[in-house]
């Protein structure tokens, strides 16, 4: 009996924390079906007009398309560059590898607004404000750390003797990479690509500085809508994003567990 009380307390505390972590975000789901244009909880009435607005209003739907395109490009570029870097770091070993790794992770630590102001200054000179190149470059910088970490973690458990074995059997470096290394570090590369996509899709601070009325990403549109008025369309977008991400993580975790068991 003496042991059960702390256990119960711990369980209760964790339940409260879990609710506190997840529940606030769930508030936006009922809000998205509100009948009137207000963000007061609980919502009054019921309608699908905010979802309709999101899919028919070019301001909203256009920004979703921009975000999706940028995020796909960032996922491709950052994954290729980041995977190359992670392989380079792993092969360098020792101090040089560690230093390069630390340098490549700094974009995660630099305060967002300072970075955004600097990028804005450079982009003004280079005429990159409000351009595809501008978004992809800035988001790639922010995504590289996630790819380097994800692929690096996978490489750390990768048995390099497999490469040596392939080479000793006469395989060229390229053949070895594509038939031995790549398939084995694919999980790391895929999760890196997913991280890169989400990083770009969610990025708001730098995007706020380098945005233009013609080329706007979804988080910028959400942010400006929130600061302008109480439009439940924001809640509709949020609910869709929440649903999509929960599905992806849920499936990822379930398949991840299956994979490990097999």
């Amino acid at each position: 009996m003496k042991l059960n009380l702390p256990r119960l307390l711990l369980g209760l505390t964790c339940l409260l924390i879990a609710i506190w972590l997840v529940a606030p975000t769930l508030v936006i789901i009922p809000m998205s079906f509100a009948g009137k244009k207000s963000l007061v909880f609980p919502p009054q009435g019921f309608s699908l007009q905010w979802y309709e607005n999101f899919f028919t209003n070019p301001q909203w739907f256009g920004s979703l398309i921009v975000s999706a395109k940028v995020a796909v490009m960032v996922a491709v570029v950052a994954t290729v560059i980041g995977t190359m870097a992670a392989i380079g770091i792993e092969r360098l070993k020792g101090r040089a590898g560690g230093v390069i790794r630390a340098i490549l992770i700094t974009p995660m630590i630099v305060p967002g607004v300072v970075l955004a102001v600097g990028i804005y200054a450079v982009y003004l000179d280079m005429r990159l404000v409000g351009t595809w190149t501008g978004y992809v470059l800035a988001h790639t910088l922010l995504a590289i750390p996630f790819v380097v970490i994800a692929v690096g973690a996978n490489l750390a458990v990768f048995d390099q003797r497999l490469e040596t074995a392939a080479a000793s059997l006469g395989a060229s470096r390229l053949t070895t990479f594509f038939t031995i290394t790549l398939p084995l570090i694919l999980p790391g590369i895929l999760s890196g690509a997913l991280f890169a996509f989400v990083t770009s899709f969610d990025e708001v601070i730098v995007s706020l500085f380098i945005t233009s009325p013609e080329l706007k990403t979804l988080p910028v549109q959400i942010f400006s809508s929130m600061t302008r008025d109480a439009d439940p369309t924001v809640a509709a977008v949020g609910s869709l994003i929440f649903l999509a991400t929960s599905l992806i993580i849920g499936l990822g975790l379930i398949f991840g567990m299956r994979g490990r068991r097999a």
Partner: protein
Amino acid sequence: MSSNPAPRASRGPLYLTLPALTVLVLVMAVPLGVIVLRSFMEPEPGLANYVWFFQTKVNITVLLRTFSIAFWVTVCCVLVAYPYAFAMSVAGPRLRLVLIMCVLVPFWVSGVVRTLAWVILLQDSGVINRILLSLGFEKVRLIRTQLGVTIGMTQVLLPFMIMPLYAVMRGIDLRLLQAARSLGAHPVKSFFQIYLPLSLPGVFAGATIVFILALGFYITPLLLGGPQSTMLSTLIQQQVLSLLNWGRGGAMGVVLLIATFGILAIASPFMRRKYQMSGGSR
């Protein structure tokens, strides 16, 4: 193929990192360099912008407030994350999956959307105030206050505290606690003398990350806060975008950069202790 394969083999890995480093130089090093340069050069060469920063009372108030908010957010994160991460480390596989999901879901849902949820909850006629009223308490002003900002930021930053803490706690051998108990130690004593010290590297790692990220927070304080809870990031944005004063904005940016990397430099030896402890033989 190659006439001298040896140097090629040693330099190859370095070339592989070049594309990533190029992006880093172009989109991070050059922009930050421009900020530092402008803080010293605009409108005139000299330290005028820094003198202005440290002699203006508002700036010092905001600087201190930024540190104080980051401090309290870190304290809240440690207190909330510790029992949670502990439960994660002792739970069975299925319960652990649920607990991890609860951490990861908010982590992946965009920060702007989560802040929107907090705006809805914390507003004067929001859910929290209604619950307080129905329980017979007085209305509390939460939105546009430091308390509201702290609550919102703690929830947004909590995953950064839980994950490193969990990583360390998972490696702690629970049989050590059983051993202490079998030798007659009180559970409370064995926790403070054995478990807590072993988990400290995780606490330091998580607290450092949370504190650093909190110092540079922008979106949450902007949407949840008011004039009385402005943080340094908002001030920088105002100087540059509203007042077009790149010199002063730059100087504030440099102060924030130095604070961030200074704290990282001070804290990193404490985080590294983790490897010495688990390594043992060194």
